[in-house]
């Protein structure tokens, strides 16, 4: 898995890495889902695949990729709490100051933890040997 939990006294900190920026955003979302333990309702008739599925497009514009990342993950926090939806199959396009995401959402079957918010605390997307890397602190 291209993400790991980092020691934090009170909140959650997640380190994510990927070969490119688009994949970094997708992995951050997957990592966040793993942290909360969000699982979609499975469609038994269709062979245990998530369902029913809604397709959604999310777009944002911001001065820097870190702000785009916070916007994107905050969108997922809102969808989980307010619409009881969990998303996967992310197709991400980050272009400096704009973001386009296509994703599939299914109703949440269960979730272990809620994230209150995605913070900007020490948030820097960096180029490393692994490609791109970022550490995200969530308020829980």
């Amino acid at each position, binding site marked *: 898995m291209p993400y790991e*939990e980092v*020691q*934090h*006294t*009170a*909140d*959650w900190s997640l380190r994510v890495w990927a070969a490119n920026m688009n994949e970094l955003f997708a992995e951050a979302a997957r990592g966040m889902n793993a942290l909360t333990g969000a699982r979609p309702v499975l469609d038994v008739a269709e062979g245990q695949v998530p369902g029913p599925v809604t397709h959604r497009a999310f777009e944002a514009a*911001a*001065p820097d990729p*870190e*702000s785009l990342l*916070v*916007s994107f993950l*905050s969108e997922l926090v*809102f969808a*989980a*709490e*307010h619409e*009881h939806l969990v998303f996967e199959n992310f197709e991400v396009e980050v272009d400096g100051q704009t973001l386009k995401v296509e994703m599939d959402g299914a109703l*949440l079957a269960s*979730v*272990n*933890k*809620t994230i*209150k*918010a*995605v*913070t*900007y*605390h*020490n*948030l820097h997307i960096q180029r490393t040997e692994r490609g791109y890397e970022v550490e995200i*602190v969530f*308020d*829980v």
Partner: protein
Amino acid sequence: MIGIQDLKKISDHEWEIPQSFRPDMRVPVRLFATRELLEQIVGDKSLEQAVNAATLPGLVGHVVVMPDMHQGYGFPIGAVAATEFPQGVVSPGGIGYDINCGVRLLASSIEAEAAAAHMNTLATLLNQYCPSGVGKEGVLHVNVPELERVMREGSRWALKNGYASETDLAHTEEGGCIENANPAKVSDRAKQRGREQIGSVGAGNHFIEVEVVEVVFDPETALAYGLREGCLVVQIHCGSRGLGHQVCTDYVQEFQGAVRRYGIELPDRELVCAPMDSPEGQAYLGAMRAAANFAFANRQILAHSIRRAFEETFARVGARYIVPLHQVYDICHNIGKIETHEVHGNRLKVCVHRKGATRAFGPGNPGLPPEYQHTGQPVLVPGSMGTASWVLAGTEESMLRSFGSSCHGAGRTMSRAKAKHEVRGEDLRREMEGRGIRVRAGSMSGLAEEAPQAYKDVDAVVETVCAAGIARKVARLRPLAVVKG
């Protein structure tokens, strides 16, 4: 990493990081702690975060940090920072996502011994009437115009609708309603999140706990607060739920641009801020107050639900038990307030950011009701789960040294992941039940994260603030039943 060698010792309970420590600091940091607590504090990044907080434009006096401090995001948890009004800044991250997270204490004259046989019923009814846990909705659902009234009026809305008494409001910080709330500055998204959450506890470290007043240290103050040794009390710990989280998310995002516009340079983007007299600052203050009022109403509705659970439980065993629960006080520990304080001999109007710190006004403060004028404000300090909680009183000293503030809890020392690794929720539940504490918890892993081993010793925290003079002991509470998500 900042070490103990970087701190200047002021006394056995007070330390300073001088302004000269880092060139971008605008004020020194004052830390209330014993050497022992300090050794736990330097284990994480909280002191570095306190130094970062000391860079905000318009700060006055010191950034004050409490002995329960621990690493947060932006500000450390347990910090108090005052900026001069109106040209100083307000920082949404310095107040936190859970705007007006706070504690309410209700007291009874029901003797714990006589009630022991009914604690299971009580715990079950509290769990039933006070929804807690991940994704749980509140007991009230309102439409947007009604929600806007809640945000403007706070506990006054609850009073008008039959969920509160005049005494409840008098015994709530700001009377349960912060003036100049502006629901128009709260996003539609925040309103959507709040509409269905009034009267819900939430998850994480939020809880409802039934306790017994185990020891009274100051009988006169305890009497004024309505606390009787051996009797039951109930503590509520929660905040503004998704509505507050969204307000803070929106403004931290928006202020990323504001700092550029106002030429403010900061060591961490989570500290973003705007001058209070700017349009951005005014908008946030209005929205933050609206979220704070929502939290007051939320705890008020929960208090109403708790009273219902008590009445139903004790109605079964005879009329002599049916006595309404009396509200001792309701405090905010994540908030920004415009207050007047003495700084270097001058009376200044400031915005006091309390991030994991409790207001602790001393005797004679006009913000307190007549019955608490001679005692000082009740300061409610919940301990870690299964351990003691404290009722303290604010002092004149706290007005002079900590912007009228004190500690807010035990303070974490261990990450949630480590706590879950070291403690099994089921074992913890069994251990607490073995000590006579009823546990109603939605998630065993959530329970493990809140294990007392993950926190500092609340007694040591309380001893420190009392020895430093910024609060004094009134009573110690021992838990009997815990309800959490």
